């Protein structure tokens, strides 16, 4: 158990020492023109952000971010497995049971904060080592995004399969497989692409609690510790990095959607093209 205790902190620690206040001013360049860029200047110069041993260099920060993203990528695979399993479950159950599965499973997944399954897995995973904490973290953060994706996939396929073009294609003699691959899938793909940014957001957000509980010294834990220890410069840089990753994901998804969906390339009604 790396991170004990989580919140039995002494309130007196909130009384800041003059040294710490001075470090705040120094880190943020208070009173200096463009002082808010000071953390970035230190980062580029290879200096340590934050105070003493609790700080972090730019290289360490990037390594931790890459490690968190690697855990996130494993979680994406797991989320796809959850999504596939849940969509199959919804397809296979009878109508009477469908309501219970469509209501209860998402409520259970949404109503369970990441830290609860992490707490239950932590005693077994942390002691075992051998990447088991990483796998446990990926598992606990993948549940809600997986069920969300599964709901979306099942609903999209259900909607598309009920459309007239599917019946028309079948009546012209196309096989079910060909109809799915050539007609249904291209229409479902934009919905799936649109779901990637919220899934990426949920996965990265889940990493804060999962990494903290499972003692993974990556970006999520670094961020929580920086907030708890009031490392202003680390929080500023880490927040910007985190937001940049999400913007990058949205940009890539936007480009992919533009390539995949012809409707995305059509001009918006009312907008004039040069």
């Amino acid at each position, binding site marked *: 158990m790396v991170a004990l205790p989580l919140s039995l902190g002494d309130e007196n620690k909130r009384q800041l020492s003059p040294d710490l206040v001075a470090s705040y001013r120094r880190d943020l360049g208070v009173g200096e023109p463009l002082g808010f860029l000071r953390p970035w200047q230190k980062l580029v110069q290879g200096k340590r952000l934050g105070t003493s041993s609790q700080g972090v260099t730019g290289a360490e920060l990037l390594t931790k971010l890459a490690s968190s993203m690697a855990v996130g990528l494993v979680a994406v695979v797991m989320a796809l497995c959850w999504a596939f399993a849940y969509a199959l479950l919804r397809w296979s159950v009878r109508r009477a049971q469908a309501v219970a599965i469509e209501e209860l499973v998402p409520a259970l997944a949404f109503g369970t904060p990441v830290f609860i399954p992490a707490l239950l897995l932590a005693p077994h995973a942390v002691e075992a080592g051998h990447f088991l904490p990483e796998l446990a973290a990926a598992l606990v953060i993948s549940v809600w995004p997986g069920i969300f994706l599964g709901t979306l996939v099942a609903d999209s396929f259900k909607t598309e399969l009920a459309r007239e073009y599917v019946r028309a294609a079948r009546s012209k003699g196309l096989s079910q497989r060909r109809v799915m691959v050539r007609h249904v899938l291209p229409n479902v793909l934009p919905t799936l692409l649109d779901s990637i940014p919220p899934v990426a957001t949920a996965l990265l957000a889940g990493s*804060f609690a999962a990494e903290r509980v499972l003692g993974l010294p990556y970006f999520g834990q670094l961020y929580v510790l920086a907030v708890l220890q009031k490392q202003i410069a680390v929080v500023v840089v880490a927040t910007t990095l985190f937001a940049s990753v999400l913007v990058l994901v949205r940009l890539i998804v936007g480009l992919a959607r533009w390539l995949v969906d012809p409707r995305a390339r059509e001009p918006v009604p009312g907008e004039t093209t040069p």
Partner: protein
Amino acid sequence: MTRRLPAATRFLLVGAALLLVLWALSFAVAVLRPSAFARLCPLGSDVLRPDSSVCALAFGGVWISLSVGLLAGAAATVAGFGVASIARIFGGWVDAVLMRSADALFALPDVLVLMVLQFAAQTAGDLHPRLRINPVPLMILSLAMVGWAAPARLFRDRLETLERAEFVGAARALGAGHWHVLNRHLWPFLRDYALGIFLSRVPAAILAESTISFLGIGKIEPMSLGRYLGTSYASLLYGEGVRIVLPAWVLLILIVLGASLAGRGASALAEH
């Protein structure tokens, strides 16, 4: 012969009743009769606080989690409605700027923004004691500042749809101002919708609060469910994790289920 209630009304009533019962029982246990649960609790006493039972600590946290969630949900809904109204009244670039801001905030995880807000407010309070805010109002304020984006987007789109109706055009042609149209003609169509949005914000607020409190960043007193779990972390070392974690988990799910059911019912009623 009794008439069966519509599904939407049943969802709303069951969800609201679940929330009310949980809140009232928890408040009674935690505030009115704290000693009663200590004797009856089958889960024994807490590892770190031997003078308190697990039942009293977990169940006692329900009312504070629920209160924070309800107040934050209400504040986020009111703020979202305010932003949407301003966006529709002024239109043009004001509308575009407000909605792009909402979209930008919506793209970031609630937990991250909450951590930043709590961090900023706590640091400001440490540097200038006059700016220090009590943790409970600070949490409600932070949750409202995080949660206004989705209601603003939903209200704005609904207002835009309603404004195309003939009766709104007729009222404007007769000289009615923006405030009059909003208050007298549009609000009656928005009441159930607003209730649905408010109830849908409650579980999100409760979950975000529980995560922040669990991480030790929000220091709510009396302890919410998340803070209780965060402070009981060490009990896992003694193999007591399941006894401590499971009751709080079940209670969190019940709260979220109640709010989700009520929200779904209210949204379905608004659609009709």
